[in-house]
């Protein structure tokens, strides 16, 4: 499978994602420059983490205007699988591919540490190799991961099973005290209504290999691969 990883100026997890795509799930990773305009031949797209344009303005707000984003929006519109990780997730929000916005962490500092998340919906192209309710240990590394949306949108997200991950403790209890950044409803990741776009703040690519002491993140990539293999129609 051909998996495209978009490189914005300031992306810094692009090579990490490419490493997992090629070395962990054995697929072909294509680094795609933000000024390109075509995603021809790609089976799925990853928007990686980093500090696109330095995040000097609101996170992701400039990257969203990169020429490649039109192609990404078009790709997603045709049902293509799009995964946004951290800054990639922020860009998906800014581009309107996912609802809501990211605020500054409640403690206003950058936070880098492992957290636990509960898989709320295992029936997505990004979580189909997980069990529903499964607890994953994943690292976060962000200053703006405090997800917010209005009550109406939140209800819709909840009703449509669009909340895919919630912060929780290691036994799967999703309590306010386990919320690292102040995110509404302990949300760590959401999908769009159609289900082909996922954004999450934790970094699954950072815990997909035995040597790194944690392989929980591998499940996100194996799920993506399983979806691509199982459903050729998703190849757009």
């Amino acid at each position: 499978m051909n998996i495209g990883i978009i490189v914005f100026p300031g992306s810094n997890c692009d090579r990490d994602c490419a490493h997992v795509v090629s070395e962990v799930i054995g697929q072909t990773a294509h680094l795609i420059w933000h000024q390109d305009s075509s995603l021809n031949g790609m089976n799925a797209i990853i928007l990686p983490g980093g500090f696109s344009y330095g995040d000097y303005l609101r996170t992701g707000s400039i990257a969203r205007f990169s020429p490649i984003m039109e192609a990404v929006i078009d790709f997603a519109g045709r049902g293509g699988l799009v995964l946004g990780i951290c800054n990639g997730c922020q860009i998906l929000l800014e581009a309107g591919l996912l609802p809501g916005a990211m605020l500054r962490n409640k403690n206003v500092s950058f936070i880098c540490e492992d957290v636990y998340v509960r898989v709320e919906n295992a029936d997505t192209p990004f979580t189909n190799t997980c069990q529903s309710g499964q607890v994953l240990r994943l690292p976060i590394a962000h200053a703006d991961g405090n997800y917010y949306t209005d009550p109406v949108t939140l209800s819709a997200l909840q009703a449509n099973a669009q909340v895919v991950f919630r912060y929780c403790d290691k036994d799967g209890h999703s309590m306010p005290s386990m919320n690292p950044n102040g995110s509404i409803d302990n949300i760590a990741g959401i999908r769009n209504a159609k289900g082909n776009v996922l954004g999450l703040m934790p970094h699954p690519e950072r815990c997909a290999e035995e040597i790194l002491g944690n392989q929980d993140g591998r499940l996100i990539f194996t799920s993506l691969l399983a979806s691509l293999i199982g459903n050729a129609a998703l190849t757009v």
Partner: protein
Amino acid sequence: MTEDIKTLPPSHITPDLIQQHGLSEEEYTQIVTHLGREPNLTELGIFSVMWSEHCSYKSSRIHLKRLPTEGPHVVQGPGENAGAVDIGDGLAAVFKMESHNHPSFIEPFQGAATGVGGILRDIFTMGARPIALLNSLRFGELDTPHNRHLVKGVVSGISWYGNCIGVPTVGGEITFNDIYSKNPLVNVFCLGIVKKDRLLRGLAKGAGNQVLYIGAKTGRDGIHGATMASDSFDDASEKKRPNVQVGDPFLEKLLLEACLEFLEQDLLIGIQDMGAAGLTSSSCEMASRSGTGIELDVAKVPRREPDMTPYDVLLSESQERMLLVAQPGKEDAVLAVCRKWGIDAAVVGRVTDDGVLRIREGDQIVAEIPADAIAEGAPRYDRPSAPPQYQEILQALNLDTLPDVKDPVDALLQLLDCPTIASKRWVFRQYDYMVGTNTVVCPGSDAAVVRIKETGKALAMTTDGNSRYCLLHPYMGGGLAVAEAARNLVCSGAKPLGATDCLNFGNPERPDIMWQFIMAVEGIADACRAFDIPIVSGNVSLYNETNGLSIYPTPIIGMVGLIEREDDITTQWFKQPGDVVVLLGETREDIGGTEYLKIMHSREQGMPPWLDVEREQAVQQCALTLIQKGWVQSAHDCSEGGLLVTLAECCLTHPSTPLGATITLSQERLRLDALLFGESPSRIVLSVTEGNLAHVTQCIQDMEPKVPMSLLGHVTDTDTLAVTVQGEQHATARHLSWPITDLADRWHNGLTRQLGIEHS
């Protein structure tokens, strides 16, 4: 200061003007000799920064020659942007440590951030992709709002710059002492990886080749930053805030990627970072190294503001700029890479063969100086040195009048609570230590371990230095810093390959400070020679003095080691109940200069622990052998706080499940405080499985030279650290115990409590 200079007529160099430029009369006479005439103002400015202590190492250079810089692994020694060692498989590790002390005191956030930016540029100008940052920080005690402000500012500055550019900050160390209240230290270490045969250097070869400027536009920021960094402080130093530069990590990320593309496409002859003294130092150094000259036209330099004089442009320390010499015919390819990344670039001059740095502004020559005169011709001082009279008072510690510890249970809790020893999680949680997906051992063990994806090997790295030891005995302190750094690497499973040093001292014009410097350098040099660890790069920061009060002599050693096999990677925390706890090395009556003495007796005096280099080597060799045989579950060196703190850390620092331990110590003829909290070097606490114990004991007994070993007890799954101290002969044994939860509370929350921050 610069305002005053500019308003004066350019050709009239007065004694005042010379003084304002930080030059002595004698130095001015030398300038006139070099030029064969009086300098103009621009030239005076150039000499001023290039002959500043910061750029010229004029007080330190003759002493630095003592450091061993060669060895079979050395690919690049001192004198380039950074040093490099061979790590096998055709790769080199490029690394260096640098200080950004003065700017960080004046403006902690930007001062620390631009320190990170500067060291990163030193690494990627060598063609290496930076893969790890570490930092050594020194602050005053946290009982004043200003010190807390400095800590928060420096940490968030490092976090902002390192996280944004996407190079993980994987480790380092922080200690606190009031001597740093008005002179905090920010030492930043960076390491990168490059193919050995592709190493780039700061060369300007080939007359006629074009010189290109790339990166940020030049502004008036940081003019005379290097001169400021070569001066001591007084209460008016706050006014120097405009001399501190402002960083742009996003631009630096673009520069980094562009530079690595230049390397990939083989476009360059040489490249140099514009750090201290900006365009001036980069051009002089490139020409001087290559035996060539450089002609620059300042009118072609991209600028951020109007009406800048040649003086401003040449002395600006605007960040994120590089000077490079393209291979003939490849200038357009360089410019194309810059366009791709959206970086300003301009051809600003050419290489010449006359050995002269010639600066034009359009058609007019505004400065003309032999490049060698500025770079290599800088003054060298053999400044007077003498041991201070207070040295004997400092070293005197009469143990007969020092009461032994009465309540060891409370003493351990107090030590774990003190910010120097307590967990630094509040700090490293703000650093992205995982980006790059190479960090195998995260912050919080003896050394950070970063894998090399291309080869399946790993590098361990650490920064260490105990300034109290150096104050009490600078020679011993220097040696102990080297020993501890090497010991930390060995505990991680690595064989040390090379080191970098960052030498932070007070005012070198004072004989006592100069004596501290010379002694510490000798201590470092002798220890490096004994351990066969070359110093491949480094930095000297002098004039760390405010209102006449100098910092403790603070040499910091950054060291890098190679771990050949993944299986050898070792961490400090106990792994499983039932494992046997083993101490390599021997506990002596080393109370002088300890953290215990400072915390419990408010005294910083005595002789520091004595380093026996042969013993140290034997202990390290023994530990590494055991690790490589696969018999070691955990390894942790004994340092600040002594054996009890080490044991507590072995119990507490497990990332998910802290364990307990049952320990028996034999007091023999030692004081109890020396046994529990003394800081004898050359000690490592190991844990091994019961099944491997016989192998381990046999192996240690077979070691030559002999390594003292004692079996201390077992790891347990209880919530208790229990320590039995067997007294001399028939004395009753003393039983000490701590709930692990109590130890954990002190250790986890000590720093945040003092910073006045609620948990998280």
